[in-house]
């Protein structure tokens, strides 16, 4: 390492950006220049003089008792500084987001393929890798619990967690369940009102977040006995809250700073290497860096819940929905992670953006010995959307109706009630969004005479010259909640400082928000400019020195931390104006900050902010809480559970090679209501990115798990869409303000990932006439060679 001359940490510094663009504009990203120069310090770029490399030994078995662990040979390896097992943990041994059921290092047993058992710190990653292989573990291998049938029969197949193992365990292997009854539920009387009934069983495979920047970070032991951790995460404070008890430290001695994050999509909500690197740093007294290889990344984070769903819808002959009867079974894997909240979302949103007078629903998450599942973009709403949208198409076919018309006929709008009983109190333009995608111009029809064959399914593989290609079109719409739900006190904190630097007023914004690529820091600068009338804004690195920002998930950060920045900036503005009132005796009530000046609407400029501020800085911190929500009733599922809803509609055009089963999405259109586009360029980017992950789920992305073992933990075998797989994605952005949200905005990032998948499958179905009740759709499903 001696020739390395720079330290990654040098880039974890203030980033100053200047622009005239406030909200509604599209200024360039403050971190963009560093990123295109290769100078942006991602968590895997962290470096420290004299640092060690950490690595974990992971279980090859999904379920086994650990009989013994022998670390002696690994410890003797030259270059190895420490080898740790659960016995070396100074504090509590378990952690978890909602239920503390996950050991930081396995104790006595392993519950999933890839569970961490021991840790090594060494002077070179290869030394660590070799030492890991020298740890000898003796296992008693057990038959894993991997199916719903096994999990629901613990007397026969056993428990993933023995009931005595921790207090908050559900019943049997059920991690969490939520029932819901709306209207009269599903009774014989209700069923008799339906002229047409469609029933379907649907299945969703296990999708991975597959962010490009692997889990990584650097833990540095501090002189006060604490730990300084530089890490890529989605929520610094909840990491700290889970880490400190395990490290045996008070929270104030565990200090986290956000290092550059290479994508997240929910996969960084749970801890990965945070505790491991910190334990090794505590033990060795040296900085320890851990960077996951791609296979370890697949083992080291939770995935999207695979689901088995049963849907029954009844409707009148003219297409009005009468009832729905739904059961959703989500495989939560070995540890709870966010499963309880995912279940709540699936149950409350699992009937889609439709008015259905009578609903019965049950959603459960199971404990199994499959990989743990938790948060991923769309969070419980994605799986259900594939179910209810497939049902809508089938119902339309049954009734001989246009599928878009059927959806519009039943679409909810402002003032309607969800099956949870909650009234929608902001715009819900479901029918309008469907109309918009339907009205957008279609791509030109397939013209075999003038075609570049690289544009056909199979693309560059030269598998077809157009024979056997059929085109289909499909539609879908989805609903997603914004922010944390079910009574959670969701809040965010922001500190805004205004001072004169270099003869100019400069605003500084300091939050603990994880910028994971979504562009939150760009928006924060825009908000500060809008509220304070300045051009220069400095973004301070996110860390635990300021209050919690909550998670960068649930499409909540622009709403929540953006809202906090707005509140803090408004407070700074009022303080500055107050200062002017005291100094100059202003009595006007129409004062504002514009263009670096204090301005009266009637009288124009009064004084420059530079003159008014002088050498003083105004520095204020504010918290933004969204209005309270409440828990769903356990039995009926009723309650004001969500703070905001967001809707997206899609149209997919696909070409299918019916002989080879290959699919090429030709175009994927999206229409979404964003309330107010704070940054139109970013909004469109989020919608296109969200649609692309939905495309991945529709036709290629799945972690293959067989008997509890992961079979494709690499980018060679787990396929995410390339630029050849992704078509043009025209986006129509609607802005109908939500009166309850800052600036009227609506969360953006997740809705397209919820809604777009079914449109693609519907288009393949239209092209082929095959039912396709499981995603991802594979070539063998289309050719019938399964």
């Amino acid at each position, binding site marked *: *390492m*001696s*020739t*390395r*001359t*720079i330290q990654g940490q040098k880039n974890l510094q203030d980033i100053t950006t200047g622009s005239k663009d406030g909200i509604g504009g*599209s200024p*360039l990203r403050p*971190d*963009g*220049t560093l*990123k*295109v*120069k*290769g100078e*942006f*310090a*991602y968590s*895997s*770029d962290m*470096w420290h003089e004299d640092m060690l490399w950490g690595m974990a030994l992971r279980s090859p078995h999904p379920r086994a008792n650990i009989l013994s662990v022998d670390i002696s040979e690994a410890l003797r390896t030259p270059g190895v500084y420490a080898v740790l097992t659960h016995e070396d943990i100074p504090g509590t041994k378990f952690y978890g987001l909602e239920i503390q059921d996950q050991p930081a290092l396995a104790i006595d047993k392993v519950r999933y393929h890839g569970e961490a058992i021991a840790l090594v710190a060494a002077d*070179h990653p*290869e030394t660590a890798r070799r030492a890991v292989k020298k740890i000898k573990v003796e296992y008693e291998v057990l038959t894993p619990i991997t199916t719903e049938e096994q999990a629901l029969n613990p007397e026969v197949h056993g428990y993933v967690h023995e009931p005595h193992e921790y207090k908050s365990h559900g019943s049997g292997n059920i991690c969490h369940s939520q029932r819901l009854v709306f209207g009269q539920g599903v009774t014989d009387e209700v069923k008799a009102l339906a002229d047409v009934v469609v029933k379907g069983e649907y299945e969703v495979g296990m999708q991975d977040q597959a*962010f*490009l*920047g*692997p889990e990584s970070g650097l833990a540095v032991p501090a002189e006060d006995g604490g730990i300084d951790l530089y890490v890529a995460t989605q929520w610094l404070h909840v990491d700290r809250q889970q880490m400190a008890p395990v490290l045996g430290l008070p929270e104030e001695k565990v200090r986290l700073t956000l290092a*550059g994050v*290479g*994508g*997240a*999509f929910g996969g960084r909500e749970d801890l990965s290497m945070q505790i491991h690197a910190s334990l090794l740093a505590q033990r060795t007294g040296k900085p320890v860096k851990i*960077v996951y*290889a*791609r296979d370890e990344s697949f083992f080291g984070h939770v995935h999207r819940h695979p689901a088995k769903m049963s849907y029954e819808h009844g409707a009148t002959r003219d297409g009005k929905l009468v009832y729905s009867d739904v059961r959703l079974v989500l495989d939560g894997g070995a540890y709870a992670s966010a499963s309880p909240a995912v279940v709540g979302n699936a149950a409350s949103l699992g009937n889609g953006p439709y008015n259905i007078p009578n609903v019965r629903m049950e959603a459960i998450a199971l404990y199994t010995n499959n990989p743990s599942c938790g948060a991923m973009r769309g969070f419980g709403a994605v799986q259900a959307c594939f179910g209810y949208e497939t049902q809508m198409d089938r119902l339309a076919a049954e009734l001989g109706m246009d599928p878009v018309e059927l959806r519009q006929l039943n679409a909810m709008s402002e003032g309607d009630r969800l099956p949870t009983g909650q009234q929608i109190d902001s715009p819900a333009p479901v029918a309008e969004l469907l109309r918009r995608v339907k009205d957008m111009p279609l791509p030109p029809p397939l013209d075999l005479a003038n075609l*570049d064959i*690289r544009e056909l399914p199979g693309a*560059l593989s030269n598998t077809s010259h157009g024979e056997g290609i059929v085109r289909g079109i499909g539609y879908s719409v989805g609903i997603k909640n914004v922010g944390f739900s079910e009574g959670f006190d969701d809040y965010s904190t922001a500190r805004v400082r205004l001072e004169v630097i270099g003869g100019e007023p400069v605003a500084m914004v300091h939050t603990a928000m994880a910028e*994971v*690529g*979504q*562009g939150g820091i760009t928006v924060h600068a825009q908000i500060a400019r809008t509220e304070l009338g300045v051009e220069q804004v400095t973004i301070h690195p996110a860390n635990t020195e300021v209050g919690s920002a909550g998670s960068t998930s649930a499409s909540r950060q622009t709403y929540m931390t953006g809202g906090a920045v707005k509140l803090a900036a408004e407070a700074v503005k009022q303080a500055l104006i107050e200062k002017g009132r005291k100094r100059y005796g202003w009595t006007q009530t129409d004062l504002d900050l514009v263009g670096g000046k204090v301005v009266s609407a009637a009288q124009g400029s009064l004084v420059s902010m530079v003159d008014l501020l002088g050498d003083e800085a105004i520095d204020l911190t504010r918290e933004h809480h969204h209005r309270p929500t409440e828990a769903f009733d356990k039995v009926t599922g009723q309650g004001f559970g969500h703070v905001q809803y967001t809707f997206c509609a899609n149209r997919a055009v696909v070409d299918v090679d019916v002989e080879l089963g290959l699919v090429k999405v030709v175009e994927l259109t999206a229409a979404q209501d964003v309330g107010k586009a704070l940054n139109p*360029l*970013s909004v*469109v*980017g989020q919608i*296109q*990115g969200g649609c*692309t*992950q939905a495309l991945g789920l529709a036709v290629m992305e799945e972690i293959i798990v067989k008997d509890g073992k992961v079979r494709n933990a*690499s*980018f*060679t075998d787990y396929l*995410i869409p*390339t*630029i*050849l797989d*992704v078509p*043009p*994605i025209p986006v129509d952005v609607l802005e109908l303000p939500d009166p309850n949200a800052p600036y009227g905005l609506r969360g953006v990032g997740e809705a397209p990932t919820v809604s777009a998948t079914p449109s693609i499958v519907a288009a393949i179905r239209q092209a082929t006439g095959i039912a396709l009740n499981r995603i991802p759709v594979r070539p063998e499903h289309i050719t019938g060679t399964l």
Partner: protein
Amino acid sequence: MRVTFTANGKPVEADDVWEGESLLYVLRERVGLPGSKNACEQGECGSCTVYLDGTPVCSCLVAAGQVQDREVRTVEGLTEESGELGLVQQSFIDAGAVQCGFCTPGLLVQTDALLERSPQPSDTDIREALSGNLCRCTGYEKIMDAVRLASARKCQKAGAAE
């Protein structure tokens, strides 16, 4: 072993290089050029793309010893000597093609190489050329915009120079 090569026009040397180390590891951990990213170590994602003697390669698949006395150009080398951003770099920022940015260094090198050999590529040419570079954030639409923008700027610049 000791490996000496040229990185972005400057001679560099790395000592105590283990035979199994990749060019990517040497660039990132030994010679202070962490711009190239490591996301898969299998040549599947393209995040580590660098020029090796003028040809784009996945530096994770190149053994460090293979670059002895050869020329490497990384994303850091796309910035002008003056510190000004290169045309492709600026186009990616302007088009909104950078989100988390982890794929960006590899895409920049690959795009630079594409426009060197084909200044006005068709959309299908662009897709073919960039199909070895995964991006998980953008949906690629803004990347397409960025490459088209860079192509237009490059042609405009060439036209002005004539």
